[in-house]
């Protein structure tokens, strides 16, 4: 069936089987492979994208359910070749190890910052509860979010501290 999607401000019209999920549709039919498949069952969050303003597991959305939807994926983070502020802070804080969870993490964080401009550590943890990092680099991710929201400061030894 014919599916029309707006992904990162660009319209795509593609034919797909109705039983195809949004994750595979994005990767195989739209050609955006930034969004990853981990578990395929809504547990790991690697496939998190933003659909009509809300974070969702793309593996648990059927492509026809997303017909007409507005989607944001990790490819929409950088603008004109320049990484987004959150991406910059991810690099600075070494919040990326193997990188497999990163696209989903970035989408969950984008969703969080849309709802809560200055999240607490607890709120950050809750927001990425559904995103597994199997390198277990959660602390660096939390620090990157604290930093991008102006909640980290340098102490007199030059170490970063939570404000």
């Amino acid at each position, binding site marked *: 069936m014919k599916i029309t999607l707006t992904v990162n401000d660009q319209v795509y019209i593609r034919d797909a089987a*109705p039983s195809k999920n949004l994750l595979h549709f994005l990767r195989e039919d739209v050609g955006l492979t930034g969004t990853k498949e981990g578990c395929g069952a809504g547990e790991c969050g690697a496939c998190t994208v933003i659909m009509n303003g809300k*974070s969702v597991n793309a593996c648990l959305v059927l492509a026809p359910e997303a017909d007409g939807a507005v989607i944001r994926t990790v490819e929409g983070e950088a603008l004109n070749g320049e990484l987004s502020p959150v991406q910059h802070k991810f690099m600075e804080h070494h919040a990326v190890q193997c990188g497999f969870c990163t696209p989903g993490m970035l989408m969950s964080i984008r969703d969080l910052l849309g709802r809560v401009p200055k999240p607490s550590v607890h709120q950050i943890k809750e927001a990425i*509860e559904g995103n597994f990092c199997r390198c277990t680099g959660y602390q660096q991710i939390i620090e990157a979010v604290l930093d991008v929201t102006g909640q980290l400061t340098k102490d007199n030894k030059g170490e970063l501290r939570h404000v």
Partner: protein
Amino acid sequence: MLCEFDYLAPRTMPELFDALAAGGPDARILAGGTDLLVNVRAGLVTPKCVIDIKKVSGLDGLSFDAKNGLAIGAAVTVNQLAEEPVVREKYGLLVACAESLASYQLRNRATVVGNIVNASPCADMAPALLCYDAQVVIASRQGSRTVPIREFFTGVKKTVLAQGEIVEKILVPLTHAGGSGAYEKLKRIKGHDLGIVGVALLKKDGLVRMAVSSAAPTPILVRDCKAGESADTLAQAALQAVKPIDDVRSSKEYREFMVQVYVKRLLERV
């Protein structure tokens, strides 16, 4: 997906019932998809046709009125419920159970009604709905009927729903609204996980209502207790109501023990 199926998105209730009748046992209702698509992927269900109810007019309604209380339509997501101001004000236990269900992005899709219809013993929305004496409105081509939620579940993943019937909405009366409630859920990890055992407790006007998940073939409501009864008596009441099993996540004894621990902890919290 491992199996191929057709996708239908009816716009009205009559269209929905037509699709259900045409699809018969090979059709499956799709709301949030957070159970159905996982089961399809695992090969546990192989529908020939999936009927999306999210575009059916009227099913996305979440409304409150001072006489009848809350009405939760079949397409209302768990996050939609938990973020609604009137729900946060009057039905705190619903919010507590909602926020313990899976992860944030999953709750953006998972529906309250779907959680009930899936009828898992560990359904997180069930304990709150049991404590509030929710009513399940079931619709079919023949009309509609209302079933109290404590009679809705008939076994593990089994409900009173017959072929051709759907849950249209859940009504949550005002009887126990405004009470102080909380939910404790034992999990293997601190993050999102299925419950090993869950206890909800709601206290209002000298009455204590408790419901337990993952400790019987269905989520269960404990007998009504009085606020004056001792913590030990209340823990005993909960223990007598449950019938847990040994499984991969916990032993029967540990579940029985934790039900009592949680009743006592919750009594201190509410």
